[in-house]
């Protein structure tokens, strides 16, 4: 890593455009809302910025902390499942021929070019009680049952008297399923970016030295992919924390996430100061999690070096 003065022209030409953009078109707007979080509602529209901490104190009530905790848990579960599914997928993409690579990448991202709402409705059509997944399971059940009948075991009702359709929607399972569905490419793409054309000689050496495939995977491939894993976890976990449409449409009566509460503050409750305070609290908590992560990885890197 260079100290910036060593080639300050390069440093400035890379640094200035994004910095200007960030300040003008992101931090500027954000500052307005940050101010709101220290404000008090006066009447229907007006908010007076009084420097009050009341909004933050209200956001720290057990009611909201409990929802925060739950949201972190579900976002964490989502990230975990995304990682488990994405890793082999990304690995497979990096190992296919160059001809197939763009096709597979595109196939991964293509479902996400249809609108989220439409996709979620389609997901509902697949998962609902009278949906296609249940239809399929019933078909399998019926053939298994008639198979048993042919074997003369029909009277025993080994598979139950009739097929009971699963209630897959409107519960927390559906929320996590939906979140994984929505966030999968956020994990696959950075993993692919990190792994593509990795130096295969490491893997060959490891295998030649007699390490098992699994061992090689853990001690060679995963460390190579680590920057990708970290990036993937960040851009999966955080957006998952902020999603409200998926819990709204797939969740049951107890699937309220913190993003749903925040959304209501900016809409039906018309309480922007409180909404802003909740949003910033969520951001502070996320930063805290990220910095813990940064401390841990720095520690690891030192340990490795």
């Amino acid at each position, binding site marked *: 890593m260079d100290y910036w003065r060593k080639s300050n022209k390069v440093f400035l030409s890379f640094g200035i455009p994004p910095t200007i953009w960030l300040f003008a078109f992101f931090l500027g707007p954000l500052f307005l809302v940050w101010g709101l979080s220290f404000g008090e509602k006066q*009447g*229907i*529209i007006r908010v007076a910025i009084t420097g009050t901490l009341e909004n933050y104190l209200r956001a720290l009530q057990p009611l909201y902390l409990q929802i925060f905790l739950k949201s972190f848990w579900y976002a964490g579960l989502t990230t975990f499942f995304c990682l488990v599914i994405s890793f082999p997928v990304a690995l497979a993409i990096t190992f296919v021929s160059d001809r197939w690579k763009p096709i597979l990448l595109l196939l991964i991202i293509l479902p996400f070019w249809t609108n989220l709402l439409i996709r979620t409705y389609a997901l509902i059509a697949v998962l*609902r009680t*009278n949906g296609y997944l249940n239809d399929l399971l019933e078909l399998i059940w019926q053939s298994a049952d008639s198979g048993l009948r042919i074997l003369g075991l029909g009277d025993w009702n080994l598979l139950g008297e009739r097929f009971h359709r699963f209630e897959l929607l409107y519960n927390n399972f559906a929320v996590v399923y939906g979140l994984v569905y929505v966030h999968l490419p956020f994990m696959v793409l950075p993993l692919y970016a990190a792994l593509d054309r990795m130096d295969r000689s490491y893997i060959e050496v490891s295998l030649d030295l007699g390490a098992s495939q699994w061992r090689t995977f853990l001690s060679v491939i995963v460390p190579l992919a680590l920057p990708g894993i970290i990036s993937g976890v960040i851009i999966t976990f955080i957006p998952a924390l902020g999603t409200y449409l998926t819990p709204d449409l797939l969740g049951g*009566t107890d699937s309220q996430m913190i993003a749903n509460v925040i959304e209501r*503050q900016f809409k039906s409750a*018309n*309480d922007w100061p409180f909404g802003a305070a909740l949003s910033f609290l969520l951001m502070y908590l996320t930063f805290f999690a990220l910095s813990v992560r940064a401390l841990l990885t720095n520690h690891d890197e030192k340990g490795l070096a």
Partner: protein
Amino acid sequence: MKMNPKNHSQLSRRYFLRGLGAVAAGLTFSPGKGWSSEEKRLNFYNWDTYIGETTLDDFRTATGIEVSMDLFADNDELFSKLKEGNPGYDVIVPSNDFVERMIRANMLVKLDHSKIPNFNNLDKAFQDAAFDPKRAYSMPYMWGTVGIGYRKSKVSKVPDSWASLFASSEYSGRIALLNSPSETIPIAMKYLGHSINTADSEVVQTVEDLMIKQKKHIKVFAEDNGQDLLLSGEVDLTMEYNGDIIQVQEEDDDIAYIVPKEGTLLWEDCLCIPKGAPHSENAHAFMNYLLDGDAGALIADFIQYATPNAAAKAKLSDEYRNNPAIFPTDEVLGRSESSKYRGEAMQRLFDEAWTRISAA
């Protein structure tokens, strides 16, 4: 004269028609004093599928004013969007309580009734409103009820009481309620025998307790898609707006709609002009056009909502006029109320109660 929307792409024809429209306007309307001085444009901010198929084209033909329609999904969105200033809309369509809220927040323009002669087409009952005395700021556009949509073959008897949703285990796991504190809580109040506009924190508390107790029997708090849940068989009873249920009835005869005997929440969507509207003359002309008997009849016939326009209603079929899901009986109406603006403190109370109900 009607114009087929399919001809949109044919520019020459479109311009020709627009010219023709301007001539026609000059002939049929006595030219309003100011409207010709404005550019012939209008920005209409509306709900989706909430206007006649050809209304905007007909209006352009009649007046030469080009209407561009943008869409919002609910009142909260509309309100949030205009709160920081009007980005350029001329006519908006908020519901009754939001009209009142926007009047209080000084967000609406006072209407010039002399430019809306078709006001006289309105049913007498709609020429005045509690939320907007003398209709100073709003014109009624469509109205309706919130009730129970249900699957006839799956209920033991007609669910003519809100108790089926709020206090019964008979339909456990087959019920959907609206995921909206400002509809569901007032209706629960109505069920408990209070007014929809009760401003009493203890009543809110009672509703909260009632709903937390009933929660295990409720399958989902639906995002205004209860009609889809009903149609797909996910639930058998749903709290919904009448118009939504009417639309799925066309698909499935087994679905019915009822306003429970306790009475219900009436809603009314209104046409208003937000402060800062760049084309307020055109906006008045447009409102006047929508209240025209023929134009209003075309709209109501297409979207199948109850029109407050007596002249339009008279032109429509018996089937429409006698549909109990569109026009509830006077008896039901007598027990129902429209919600008023509750004030910001009540709004907060509602929201906190809803957060607790959902978290319980």
